[in-house]
Structure formats: C-alpha cells, structure tokens
C-alpha cells in the first residue's frame, strides 16, 4: 500500500535504457571481488557437482533437516514401518505412562501409545497442509502470473482483490470460511489455502513482472518471438524458482496453520490423531503428564523448522545462478 516515489520519475527514456548509467557487474561476477574478468572463467560440471556435495556436508543443520524430513515422509506414507501398533486402542492399565523404553513418547489417558498416534497422525496433518498449499499455489500462481504478464486493468483488478485478502488476517479468513463450510480436514485445507492464496498471487506477479521487464524478454520479443513462446520459454522458467521456494516455505506455514485450527478443534473429529488435536487433548493432563503436549508440539516444530531450512537453502541455491 505504501509506495515510495520512483526516483526515475522524470526520465523520459524507458526504464532500464538510460545509457549514461554505468552498468555494474552482475552479482554473479561480483561475488569474487578483485578477480580480473577477462577470457571468461570456465567451470566444469564435474567440479560443480563435487562442490555441491561439499556444500551439503559443510551444513550439518541442513543435512539433519533433510534426514528428519525423510523420517516424516516415511511416517506419512508408511506409518506401519515406524510404528506397527494401533493408534486408536490403548491399554487403560497403561494410562499416562511417562516416556520410556516401552512407550517412547509415553501414553495418554486411555493408555494409547503417543508415539504411535503421532506417527499415524502425520499423513493426516501433512495431507491437509499439502492440499492447502497446492490449492493456493495453483490459484494464486495463475492469477499472479496473469496479472504480471498481461498488466493493464487485469493486473489492477487482480491486485485489488489480493490487497483485500491481505487486509484480513489470514487466520481470521480461515476461521470465517470454516464457520461457513463446517469442520473437518478438507474444509481446514480449503480455509488455510484461502489464507495464503494472496501471498502466492503477489509473489507470482512480482516475479513474472520482474522477468517481463528484463531486457532478455524484451530482446526475445524484438527478435520476433511470439508472446506465448516468450511466456513459456522465458517468463515461466525464470519466475518459477522463487515461487516454488515460497511454496516450500508456505508448506511449513500451512502445517502450523492446520495444527492451530485442529488445536482449536476444527479439524478431523476425534479420535483422529491429528497433530494439533493431540496437543489439545494433552492439555487436560498438563500438570500430571506434560509430555502429552510437549512431544507432539516438538514434532510439529521440528517438521516446520526442517522445511524452513530446506526452503531457505533452495532459495539460496537459486540465487546463486
């Protein structure tokens, strides 16, 4: 909403064509200050591969995140591998056992193994978040790219709607949709998607606009390429990177939003072991059995943290090229 007057407002020439401005070396070359740039450095692909592997090894946090996410994915697709037990039945004689070798995460008030419930809740929580992100990515992406690429009144119209969606705090927007649609995982997914669709539209627009205004797109048009060729070959591939990095980041945020909504009780009905509702169930026994809230919450936090690490690494890697 806040715009600072463009400093080039008075220049009659088109933006980016002012020839008197000396062009700084691009960031890719500037990362190595003081190195003479004559004759072109050549980098063999093999070197790049080895360098990439080394970079991963030098970042143990990233490696740890990747391994943890692998575990989470296993839990989502094959929960039986990690926890063969039944998440719904418990032994009431074993109720509220603290974490130990028999029950890694302890047991709840019905004697159900909390670890098994967390593992089996993974697919439900992750699927809800994934649906939310996919809906938001596709709808936001289409509107954003259309706004950036077509410009004019279409851009104006789309962005005004986006402004309005951004003006309502996303949790409240989700809550409004839930009260209209009713409870349940699918509705939670749609609600969370509605909360982040504006973010996607905005970044998709800014990215496609950035690419559209770049000289190489103008060059492509001036060579005689058709608009759809330019869109397909230049705009989409160059805009996709940051949008996908955002999608990964938003996946983490969607897990948080889904768990918050299921914590409030709007997710899958009990006894489904959705992560948020596990924490909510544990609340009643907080004084006696703190692990019932601590451990499922820890799993949520670790998952989101790992996803964020990965998203930033993806964004960083992309910026390098």
């Amino acid at each position: 909403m806040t715009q600072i007057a463009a400093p080039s407002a008075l220049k009659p020439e088109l933006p980016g064509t002012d020839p008197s401005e000396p062009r700084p070396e691009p960031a890719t070359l500037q990362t190595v200050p003081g190195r003479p740039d004559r004759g072109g450095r050549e980098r063999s692909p093999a070197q790049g591969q080895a360098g990439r592997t080394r970079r991963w090894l030098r970042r143990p946090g990233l490696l740890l995140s990747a391994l943890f996410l692998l575990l989470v994915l296993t839990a989502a697709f094959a929960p039986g591998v990690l926890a063969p037990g039944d998440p719904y039945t418990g032994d009431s004689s074993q109720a509220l056992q603290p974490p130990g070798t028999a029950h890694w995460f302890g047991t709840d008030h019905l004697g159900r193994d909390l670890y098994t419930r967390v593992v089996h809740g993974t697919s439900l929580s992750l699927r809800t978040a994934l649906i939310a992100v996919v809906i938001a990515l596709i709808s936001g992406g289409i509107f954003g790219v259309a706004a950036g690429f077509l410009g004019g009144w279409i851009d104006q119209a789309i962005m005004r709607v986006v402004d309005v969606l951004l003006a309502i705090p996303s949790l409240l927007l989700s809550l409004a949709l839930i009260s209209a649609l009713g409870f349940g995982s699918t509705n939670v997914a749609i609600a969370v998607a509605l909360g982040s669709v504006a973010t996607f539209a905005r970044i998709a627009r800014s990215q496609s606009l950035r690419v559209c205004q770049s000289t190489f797109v103008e060059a492509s048009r001036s060579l005689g390429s058709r608009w759809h060729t330019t869109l397909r070959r230049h705009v989409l591939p160059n805009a996709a990177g940051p949008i996908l990095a955002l999608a990964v980041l938003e996946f983490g945020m969607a897990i948080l939003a889904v768990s918050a909504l299921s914590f409030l009780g709007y997710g899958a009905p009990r006894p489904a072991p959705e992560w948020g509702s596990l924490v909510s169930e544990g609340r009643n026994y907080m004084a006696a059995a703190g692990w019932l809230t601590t451990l499922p919450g820890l799993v949520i936090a670790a998952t989101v943290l790992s996803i964020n690490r990965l998203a930033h690494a993806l964004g960083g890697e992309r910026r390098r090229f």
Partner: protein
Amino acid sequence: MTEQLNPSTSRPLLEVRGLCSEYLTAAGSIPALRGADLNISAGEKVALVGESGSGKSTLSHALIGLLPENARLTDGTIRYGGEDITRWSDRQFRSLRGARIGLIPQDPTVSLNPVRTIGHQVMEAIRAHRRMSKAAARQQAQQLLDQAGIDRPAVRLRQYPHQLSGGMRQRVLIAIAIAGDPDLLIADEPTSALDATVQRRILDHLDDLAAARGTAVLLVTHDLGVAADRADRILVMSGGQIVESGTAAEVLASPQDAYTRQLVASAPGLTEPAWAPAPLPEEPEVLLRAEGLCRSFTLPARRGEPRQSVRAVDGVSFSLARGETLALVGESGSGKSTTAKLALGLEKPDAGTLLFDGQDITALRRGEWRQLRRRAQLIYQNPYASLDPRFSIEQIITEPLDAFAVGTTAQRRDTAAHLLDRVALPSHALGRKPVELSGGQRQRVAIARALALAPDLVVCDEPVSALDVSVQAQVLELLAELQRDQGLTYLFITHDLAVVRHLAHRVAVMRAGRIVEEGPTAALFEHPQHSYTQELLGAISGRQAPLHIAEVTA
C-alpha cells in the same frame, strides 16, 4: 604508535609498500592486491588507472580503512604523513578520515543519505572533527557548497538529495570531502556516472579546488583519457599490482608494460585503431528513412500536479543507406534510445513516418511487424541482462531461428556453430550458460543472435558501454568487420562520441529529442557547427593529453 617528528620534505605524504589483501569468500580466500606500491607527495595529482577487478577500488579503500568486512590486509605497509597506519583500529582511522584524507565516492546518485537534508550531511562532516555550534557549522557548510560551485547554497542546505541533479550531488560530495580540509583527496571514479559535459565541468572544478588548497589528489579511474588529462603522474593497475608508473606523457608515449600498451591502444579518445569503417557502396540505396518522428511519454502522476508529458523524440528525421553506419549520439534523456525503439517498432510514434526498404512501416499491425523483425535486429547495451540466464548459448543464438521456424533442429545447430565462429568464439561455448562467459564474450553472443536471421539492419544500443575499455575496442572491431563482410547496416546509439569515431560513416547529434547536427564523421569531428557538438567533443577525455600520441603508436 611512536610519533615521528621528521618533517623531511622529501618524504611522501602517502607511501604504500608491497600491499597485499584478500577477500574471504565461501569459495576460499581470493587475493585482491598482490604487492601494490604507491607514493603520493603533498599537492601531487596522481591517477590510478585500471579496469574492473584490477584492485584499484580495494587499494583506495584500504587507505582509509574502509575495506568490506570480508576483506583483510595480509602484507605490506601504508604510511601516511610518516605514520604507519596499516594496522590501525577503526577508532584510529576515524581521526584520519575526513580530517586528513577526504573521499569523493563513485556514484553521486546513491552516495548521499536520501532521508537527510544536504545541510545535515555537510554539517555532519564539518562537526565530525571540530567542536562548533550548529549555527557556525551551517555558515561554513554554506561556504563549502559555494566553493564547490553550487548556486544558492542557503537553499540547497534545506533540500534533500533527490531534489538535486546528479552533477549537483557530486558537488555536494566534493564539499563534504573538503570539509575537514584534508591533505589528500581520494576521488574514486568521481564522475563516471555523469554525462560527459557535466563530467568535464566537475573535474575542472575539482582541479581548481585542489590547486588552490594545495591538496594532493588520488584520482581512481577506468578511463586512461581522463587520467592523462588530469594527473601529473599515472599509475596503471592490473591484477592487484601497479604494472606501470610515470608521468602522463611517459605512460602514453612509451608504455613499458604489455597491459598498458593494450590499454593505450584501445583508449578510444587517444589513438587511431588499426581498422577503418567498411567502404560505402558506390550507389547508396536508402534502407531506412525516418521523417518527423515524434514520441511523448506521460510521466507518472505526482500528487498535487496535473499529469505531465515529456517529448522524448521531437521531430526526428534521418535516412540510412544500405551498408552504412549512422551514429545517434546524445547524453541521457536526449531521446536517442527512444528513437532506436521507434525504428524497430518496439515503440509506436505519435507522429511521423518510417520507411523501411521503400515500404511504409509506420502503421503496420503487430503480425506484420513480426515479419519485419527478420530484417531488423537489435543489440542491447547490457549483455548481462539481455541474455536469459537459463538458456544455453546455443538456445540463445537459435531463438530467432525457432521463432520463425527456420530450418531443422540440426540445421539450426549448424547455423549457431557457424555464427559463433563468425564472432570469434570457440564452438564448445555452445553448451555453456551466459554466467560462464565474460562481458565481452556475452556481447559477442548477443551479436551472433542478432545476425542469426541475416538481417539487413542492426540497431546497436550502446553495445559497448557496459564493457571494459580493452574489450570495447575488440567488439567495435568485430562490428566493423561484420559490416565489411556482410554489408550490414548499423544504426548505432551511443553517448560517447569517441566510440563511434572510427566506426560510423555519419553522425547525428541529438539533444532534447531533436537532431541538432548531422554530418559525415570526419567533418563533424573536425568542424563541429553546433555549440553543443563542440561541447561534447571538448568533453572527450584524452583531448587535453600532453601530447598527441596518435602518431607515436600508429
């Protein structure tokens, strides 16, 4: 720090010995300076010349302890006024900066804090080293601005940087640099962001100021011509070392180092190149004719003011014969780039007509324009921006062929290899990405792409201004050679008269949307009629060089 009370006059003001530095990056440490030596005596004017990446900025920033965080000095000494300042702390350097060494930074448009008034920023420099009341500082700031050649200084003090022009901002920065009355001024490419005529006036003023105050000046520049005009002594820097040093006359007339020789040979204002423009055909046939082209742009509305529009191109007429090069020369805002876009149909004229090969193309529809693109291509100013970073070189060169479905995939590949050969790049570059090529190589790729459809007309929009001087000459030579071999027609847009001197057959000088003078290149250079052309010619660096060295090196 032992105080050296040795006022020996022979001792230089600044003495740098064997200075080495390196940058710490993720990929390891990269040396920037490799044993640089530098002497400056009191009141002396020394130019430090080098291309991007030569280490000249690193050296000049090391002198005032303002290296970037990831840089460090590894060896060598810096002595200033007899004191060894190499290992000084930031606190110690503060007593030096401003008070004893002043810095005039590179780009005036970004070197002032946009949210502080000019007065605040000048007064801050005055009060950094002397206790004085605000009123007294304001008084002095006003004097400083006046000395720096700024009109109505009292008004300027209350203004913000964005309200001043680029040249005026550079004068403010000069005022800031001399505020502490330093013995040495480091001018780091002080005018390369400004138009040539402004550049000349400011450098003249800086010369006068330094002479009047007896201040030594270290002029850091990429332009050998500027160095020759302005300095007593020239130091040429390459690869982190000083490779050549001597008086301006010595360095230009008999360069010892191979790199300096290359630099002298390629400086556009200084020497004649070994090549000449392609001869014009006997019976010229008009390829492009523009008559009374006009184009206005509406400025973004500003609060409280009615919408304004600017006539970027205001009644421009020219004709261009097949095989000819016409240079459109002008400073920023003269409308030359807009004219180029009009000629290619990337912008629509408000009035006027365009004839391409006898056909009126002013009112063509989009699809028809597209067909015309096969015959008229554009080379952009910035080869870093005009190539899609995700494409391989082969994809870039074959893109126009794809667009018009010329030939089979294999044929396109052959064409690309052939074109790469034409622009003197090895064929194995086909599989590379732009990021792996240097600026000059990228511009060669852009030229190859423009030639892919064998066009009649190539519009070159400042094709060398983003490149280092030595690379500039090579690219210009390539353009001339291609014209000779293929009978290409060039519309060459540039702000730099020196660049087109040996390439263009005719030159048209543009100012404020109009062509003020047009004529054959030699005639225009020797007998400029319009006062503006004369001013532009006078601003070409190297013109004031102590001797005309064309004969020496030719």
